[in-house]
């Protein structure tokens, strides 16, 4: 494998020294409505982007450092903070890794409950992302519909976990509480309706000719470059790489469930925006399947020693979150607190491709391409 020519194309950093006077430097900055909690320094020549330098870190809060001071259980409410919409999934690899360190086997029912919660949470996250994608493209209905339909799933999660967004539901050894009574019926009904709703997005959004012409061929990432840049999740799958941790390295009960991974070939912003939507449809399928295969009774949590200590070992576990592969590397030195916790997050990995994708695009494509990376600034900063 030879070295990519990307390395030569992207100048080291952005030459922020005095450039030609007709090149305008825009701070699509933390206070600009088109960036989220980060800054993209964009240099434009007319309407064309000549260089771009992402500048994350505005919401960096040192979660990894904080995790070194708290024991394995106390870390849970902290580590879910980076992506409160996807809090189950971001806790998932931490719990898996901790279970490996503490040598815990999770009960069977807990695995299914975890999967249901994780899939619901993935949909919650994806809807939020989709809503912002809609408003970035100037499609206000696509902002309102997902935020409204998200309520259905938040409602379900609230019934399960007792909180609407920051669930703190997963713990090493299972989940914190069992499902409420009659949950399966409610869940099936709402998920069915939810699937109907998101299928209705096709007419107004995904099949909308204006949207298609706007996002087709915008920020195209070839399969080769997607691999080389180490992108993940929907960005990777939109470029035609069939890679999903749920299939490749099935955790908990994913190997017993029936679902497909959604892969598109074209690698442009349109494909990147469509893959999460297809994923949501698959999530509905997974939830229904998991509900039917779930053991009806049984414990959902292994009792732990108070203040458990792990072995002196490392563990690296991965799950598929809403933004791609989410890895957690836990180093234990035999104390109740982890020695080092490192989250390898999809947003951060996808950010590398932003300067590459935006170079040469029109300024009008900037929000479309940027947000199609499935980027969540808080998660990238951690």
């Amino acid at each position: 494998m030879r070295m990519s020519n990307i390395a030569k194309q992207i100048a080291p950093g952005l030459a922020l020294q005095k450039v030609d006077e007709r090149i305008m430097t825009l701070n699509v900055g933390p206070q600009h409505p088109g960036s989220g909690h980060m800054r993209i320094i964009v240099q434009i020549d007319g309407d064309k982007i000549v260089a771009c330098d992402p500048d994350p870190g505005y919401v960096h809060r040192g979660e990894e450092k904080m995790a070194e001071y708290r024991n394995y259980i106390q870390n849970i409410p902290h580590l879910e903070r980076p992506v409160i919409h996807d809090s189950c999934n971001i806790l998932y690899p931490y719990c898996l890794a901790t279970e490996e360190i503490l040598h815990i086997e999770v009960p069977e029912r807990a695995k299914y409950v975890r999967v249901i919660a994780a899939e619901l949470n993935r949909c919650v996250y994806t809807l939020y992302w989709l809503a912002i994608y809609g408003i970035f493209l100037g499609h206000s209905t696509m902002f309102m519909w997902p935020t409204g339909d998200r309520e259905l799933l938040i409602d379900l999660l609230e019934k399960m976990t007792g909180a609407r967004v920051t669930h703190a539901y997963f713990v090493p050894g299972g989940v914190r509480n069992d499902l409420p009574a009659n949950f399966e019926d409610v869940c099936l009904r709402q998920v069915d309706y939810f699937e109907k709703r998101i299928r209705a997005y096709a007419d107004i959004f995904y099949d909308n000719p204006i949207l298609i012409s706007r996002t087709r061929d915008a920020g195209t990432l070839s399969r080769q470059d997607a691999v080389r840049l180490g992108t993940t999740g929907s960005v990777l799958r939109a470029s035609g790489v069939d890679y999903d941790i749920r299939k490749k390295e099935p955790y908990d009960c994913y190997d017993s469930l029936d679902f497909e991974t959604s892969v598109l070939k074209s690698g442009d912003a349109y494909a990147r925006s469509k893959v999460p939507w297809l994923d949501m449809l698959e999530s509905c399928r997974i939830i229904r399947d998991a509900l039917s295969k779930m053991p009806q009774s049984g414990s959902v949590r292994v009792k732990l020693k108070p203040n458990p200590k792990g072995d002196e070992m490392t563990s690296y576990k991965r799950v598929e979150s809403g933004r791609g592969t989410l890895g957690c590397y836990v180093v234990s030195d035999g104390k109740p607190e982890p020695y080092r916790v490192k989250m390898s997050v999809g947003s951060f990995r996808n950010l590398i491709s932003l300067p590459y994708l935006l170079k040469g695009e029109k300024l009008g494509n900037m929000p479309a391409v940027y947000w199609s990376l499935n980027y969540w600034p808080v998660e990238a900063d951690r």
Partner: protein
Amino acid sequence: MADPTFVALSVLTIASAIAALELRSLIYGAIALMGTLGGIAGFFLLLDSPFVAMFQIAVYVGSIAVLILFTVMLVRRELIFQKVEDTRRKWAGIGLMLAAMASLGAVVISSGIDAITTAEPAVDFRDIGADFLTTYWPALIMMGLVLAGAVIGAMMLARREDIENDQRTS
């Protein structure tokens, strides 16, 4: 003697013509030029030629002034406010202008042109259209060629060659 509207219009027109040339900021100069053009359109209305007046506004204000403003805005900001001129040359020019104005004015006033009056109704703008299509059709075709040539030429001139049109070079 002239009526107040006329006096107001002429003051507006001439003052803004002077302002267009003398104001420090080019932007305000361009706006003053728009004042002149609008004043001329007002004269056209006074002269019962609404068609020409509207055409004047539509073309001059709608396109020429926009073009000028656009060009002015492309210019560096400090240049917009820069005013370089030779003082002696300026005063000589003013003197020359006043002399020319006086002599030409004298010629006009003494020429007995004010004897020309008319009581006939103004020309209907439909006649102009008829003229365009009957008598002056070669001129109309040439006008089209002029505009086409100007557009082709201006596009050729204004196109920037340093921007390559392809999006990415990979």
